[in-house]
């Protein structure tokens, strides 16, 4: 099942049940964070967190570092291609 979309936790609405208001693409909705936040106490750290939302539940915490790494890899790949094109042009 596929339709999951990134959202950012805005504020905790029920720490005991681990529910928070999450902003998903500009739409706010109460989302259950039980799978990404270990305990009601840990909910205080939730605001600001990015999560992957599926049918009203957060199923994963988005790893911002990995996201950057992926984009950087593609950026570097692009630069490498550019270099090789320039090198080839010079030889020609």
């Amino acid at each position, binding site marked *: 099942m596929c339709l999951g979309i990134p959202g950012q936790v805005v504020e905790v609405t029920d720490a005991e049940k681990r529910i928070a208001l999450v902003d998903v*693409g500009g*739409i706010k909705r109460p989302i259950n964070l039980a799978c990404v936040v270990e305990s009601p106490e840990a909910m205080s750290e939730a605001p600001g967190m990015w999560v992957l939302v599926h049918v009203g539940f957060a199923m994963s915490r988005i790893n911002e570092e990995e996201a950057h790494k992926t984009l950087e890899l593609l950026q570097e790949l692009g630069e490498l291609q550019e270099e090789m094109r320039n090198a080839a042009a010079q030889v020609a």
Partner: protein
Amino acid sequence: MKRSSTITLAHGSGGRATRELIDSVLLKHFGKPDQSGLQDQALFAVEAQARLAFTTDSFVVNPLFFPGGDIGKLAVTGTVNDLAVGGATPLMLSCAMILEEGLELEVLEQVVQSMARTAEEAGVSIVTGDTKVVERGAADRMFLNTSGVGLVPHGVHIASYRATPGDQVLVSGFVGDHGAAIVDARGELHLDIPVQSDCQPLNGLMQVMLEACPDLHCVRDATRGGLATVLNEFASDSGVCLGLEESRIPVREVVRGVCELLGLDPLYLANEGTLAAIVPGDATEQVLEAMRRHPAGREACRIGEVREAPGQTVLLRTPFGTERVLDVLYGDQLPRIC
């Protein structure tokens, strides 16, 4: 005699209760058409050579009130726009109501006031109508029908089969607002969607467009089925290809968000105050300038062009430079999780 606070079957009987309802609610807000008392019909003179435009629409929306509008506003706007996009100056509307027994009088009054306000905004009068009351359960609170007449000036010929290769495709503003606003109007999906319906009369905008270019080829407001459906109608009826640039089609960020969340496509969402137009290539700039000067067309833009082939097809160029066919849907879009 104490005035009832809900609609009863007596209000539909044609007798005194009916007359009281008409006077105290309908005429109070719509005004009397002329001094000769209430006749069974409204009369008006038509100059020779003018063509009469005539349209009708029924409105059965649930809920009656939604962000940015209500059934009344929708009813007036819908009929005014159907006339306006044909190049007609809308003149007068009829208003027929079927009310469910038990409907709160206050709700009726709010809807009627909304209709009166919208009619005034559009510069049309509501001159005739009918009111019926049915038993509880036989109607969903309120069904409305508005029919409208207008006059089409000489020389204006707007029709879905007039798109010609070389023409440009324009849209008057953000696409998908109404559909996004009502997608959770019943609150079943528990989404807080900060979008208002774009519901508004378009006759003012059409007037400035016609002044800039009397020879507009095709115009339609993109209601049910959205922009994609209207453009397919043009392509199909004219036998041409519409080539669109996906990145040029204006969609609000928050409407994109709703669509991503629910798996919907903004191009199929309904609009109630946005039109699509196909204009001759050399008139494009003037028409766009005129539209942008008007409040209903501030975000107007060119989204594509008309080509010869492949006929009867709408093609969408993605930001990746690839092209895909934008077809009509069969049935409504439903939110998906897949």
